[in-house]
């Protein structure tokens, strides 16, 4: 794989310390025995030294003072983890689990387990007439209505949080 690589790339990997031990030995041998490799190596080492000796630019003398003056006007924002209460997260989780379990218990309680017939299933689906199923009874149930209302409120709350975060990010960027 490495043999197909450009010699300059291989030498840069060697200089940067990214070559494998085997590749490192190969490069060292090549640099010692081959004049062309040696010349290239010297050339790259010079570039490396120049880059290492390059200077950083410095801002104005007042820079730190300016930043600190701006910062003095600010109140540091609390960490996200400090204002997201884990109990609320667990509470929401527990609520949904209870909701699912409640529906399952309610559903199974409606099944007539004593029905006998050819079917091996506790419910004889062949006798179920979908046209006669009255969904209005289910949605007129007070408990179901209450659960649905809570879900809608939670949904709106999450949507509001989502837009608030988006707005915050947008304001920070601008």
């Amino acid at each position, binding site marked *: 794989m490495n043999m197909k690589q450009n010699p300059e790339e291989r030498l840069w990997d060697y200089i940067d310390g990214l070559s494998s031990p085997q590749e490192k030995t190969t490069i060292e041998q090549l640099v010692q025995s081959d004049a062309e490799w040696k010349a290239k190596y010297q050339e790259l080492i010079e570039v490396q030294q120049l880059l290492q000796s*390059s200077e950083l630019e*410095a801002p104005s003398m007042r820079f730190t003072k300016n930043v600190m003056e701006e910062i003095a006007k600010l109140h*540091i924002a609390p960490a996200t983890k400090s204002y997201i209460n884990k109990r609320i997260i667990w509470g929401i989780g527990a609520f949904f689990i209870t909701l699912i379990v409640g529906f399952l218990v309610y559903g199974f309680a409606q099944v007539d387990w004593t029905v006998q017939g050819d079917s091996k299933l506790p419910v004889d689906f062949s006798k179920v007439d979908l046209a006669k199923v009255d969904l209005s009874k289910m949605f007129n149930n007070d408990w179901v209505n209450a659960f649905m209302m809570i879900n809608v409120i939670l949904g709106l709350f999450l949507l509001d949080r989502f837009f608030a975060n988006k707005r915050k990010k947008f304001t920070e960027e601008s």
Partner: protein
Amino acid sequence: MSTGLNDNELISKVLSGDQQAYAGLVNRYQNYVFTLALRFTKNREDAEEVSQDIFIKAYRALPDFRGASKFSTWLYTIVNTTCITFLRKKRLEVHSLDNEKVFEVADSQDSGMKANLVEQKSRMAMVNDAIKMLSTDDAEVITLFYKGEQTLEEIARILGIEANTVKVRLHRARARLKEKMETHFAHEVKDLN
């Protein structure tokens, strides 16, 4: 002052309410941040304004710094995003390989003047001038690797790209820098040999 403390100690002090401890971090990283910002903005006034903005953003976001990476890596991520936003706002082009020619044209125009000055330039100033002629992407990767003390993996995290891509970008950036130095600072490069 807080200069003897390491980054994490300074951050803890800031988070516990010692606002002045932040000056230690600003003093420590201002040159790195300013140099990187200058690679994007190409002028000192804008670079100073952007750098100031970066340190204010970092201060606001400091409570969310989890210490999973070095503070410098985290800070340079803010540098990168802030500078890109700045360029977008100013509707400047992020100089890619194609528009590098713009620099070459601009450079050839003042090459006569440069020829006289080149003799006086130190080797360090020569490298800095050559870096300035590179595209923003090339200049940024070189600055992060050689001056920002970042590994390829850390640079990858800052730029949001793969480490292998950073490696390729670094190879190409160095090759182009070498070319620039040979073209524009031929006399000085010869003197160094």
